[in-house]
């Protein structure tokens, strides 16, 4: 589907169901978001940012025009007028992250070197999605809150553990929302699924191996079928409970379902 910009795009238009409920509780606390953003900005300016600015390669129109233009496309499609600094970090692994407060994005060089343009758009859109939804700020806010709660005598530690699992469930929803943002930036759900599959290790350079979207979806079905009994479900839950990311196959399935339900297409046509 061809489109250049979705003017006025709001995060609520593509948020993963349930994410906003958890968000709403924190949003109700007056001035909490401004205070957190301020602290986070300070934290990043003094901690993370000098290392990024000093060691990572800044991607600009002059240094890497092709990647920069893809980045501009992602910003435009997600209707994000502000440009956040984009850095490349030399790493063999596939990863990228966004920081809030003083927002910026870091993408590992292996992704920049090996991903196809629409797959890279998905990655950039995913990270921009975290910034657009304020995930980085709210996650920081929640973690600070958890830290404070753990200091309460008698019940603090137990309450903090409970909050830890609740927050991680919420973080996993964030990822699904960011995946949707990634698909919007990439221009299609299929490109988003290809991007997610690449993160699982699929690679066009591998000899004799060709993955399709159906292969990953079939794998997810097999995973769900095998884990239907109660004990396995409990064990799986225990394994994922402390993770900020859903299972890889689950992410593919959720993005696919969004596409199948017509959610993506309706959104694009409505702008």
């Amino acid at each position: 589907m061809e489109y250049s910009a979705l003017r006025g795009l709001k995060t609520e238009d593509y948020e993963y169901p349930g994410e906003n409920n958890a968000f709403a509780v924190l949003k109700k606390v007056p001035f909490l978001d401004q205070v957190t953003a301020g602290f986070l900005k300070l934290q990043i300016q003094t901690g993370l940012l000098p290392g990024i600015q000093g060691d990572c390669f800044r991607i600009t129109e002059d240094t890497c025009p092709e990647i920069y233009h893809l980045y501009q496309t992602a910003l435009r499609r997600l209707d994000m007028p502000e440009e956040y600094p984009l850095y490349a970090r030399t790493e063999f692994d596939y990863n990228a992250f966004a920081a809030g407060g003083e927002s910026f994005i870091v993408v590992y060089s292996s992704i920049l070197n090996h991903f196809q343009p629409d797959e890279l758009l998905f990655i950039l859109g995913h990270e921009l999605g975290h910034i657009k939804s304020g995930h980085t700020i709210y996650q920081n806010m929640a973690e600070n809150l958890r830290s404070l709660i753990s200091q309460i005598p008698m019940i603090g530690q137990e309450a903090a553990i409970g909050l830890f699992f609740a927050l991680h469930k919420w973080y996993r929803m964030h990822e699904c929302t960011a995946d949707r943002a990634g698909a919007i930036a990439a221009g299609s759900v299929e490109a988003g699924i290809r991007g997610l599959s690449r993160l699982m290790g699929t690679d066009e350079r591998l000899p004799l191996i060709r993955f399709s979207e159906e292969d990953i979806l079939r794998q997810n079905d097999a995973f769900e079928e095998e884990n239907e009994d109660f004990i396995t479900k409990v064990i799986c839950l225990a394994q994922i409970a402390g993770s900020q990311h859903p299972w890889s196959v689950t992410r593919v399935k959720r993005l696919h379902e969004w596409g199948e339900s017509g959610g993506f297409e309706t959104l694009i046509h409505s702008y």
Partner: protein
Amino acid sequence: MGRYNQKNIHIDPSVYQHPADRTASDAVRKSEAFQKALGLISRFGIEKEIHGLYRACYAQITPSVSPAIHEMLKEAQEMFDVPVIPDIFLERTYQMRVLLTGVERPVVTVSSELLRQMDEPMLWGLMASEMAAVKAGFGEIKLIEWLCSTAGPLLPAGIAASLKVLLKNWHRYAQYTYDRTTLIAGGDFNRAVRFMLLGEAPAGVLDKMDFLDPNNRYMKQCRSFLSEKDLVANTVRGAGAVLSGGDFYASRYMELFRFYHSDYQDLIEEFE
């Protein structure tokens, strides 16, 4: 040879398992801690959980994803008389590695970088050697190895600690067996050595070398390394090999060279 020679079928592990590997694996299996760990795996259905984890996180190489690899697995199944074909998963990492785990539902994870570096004959060697490892029962020991490394502190007292040295010792010698099965499957000594040394030399260098030539440069380097007389140096090297759970390439190459000129020739004659 190998894939292209269907006379080489139904080879028993006794033919290719290195004696040091056999001794080391017997020592692991006979230990009380190993039996206890096996009991835990069976009681809590851990093998099924591991399988589920792989399925959730790694892309599975099914027959539809790679018919060619599954054809190789079937051929290797016949060659090494293996009862079950393992599920193959792709692990996304820049490291070159492969890992077999499991008995009832064996799983092989192959790293994306290793797959990227290999040509088709090497891939065949890899798949065949993993199938031979399934037949030789490596999956069971590796399952315990996995359990000790990921959940060691949670296991009943002493299990992980008492198995640590035994497992590392086995791991070291199991590599000799892997090298042998790669050679048997591919039937090409130079290719088997190139596979062993994959990623260890600048691109293109290994292709130019004849590792069967007893005067090749690498052979000289290995001989020089292995003929070290200094007691301290040898002690440090030995300790390093035991602690890392992997032997030196020099030792592996020389072992394979010896095998090629002895038992391997008998094997070839037997199947001709």
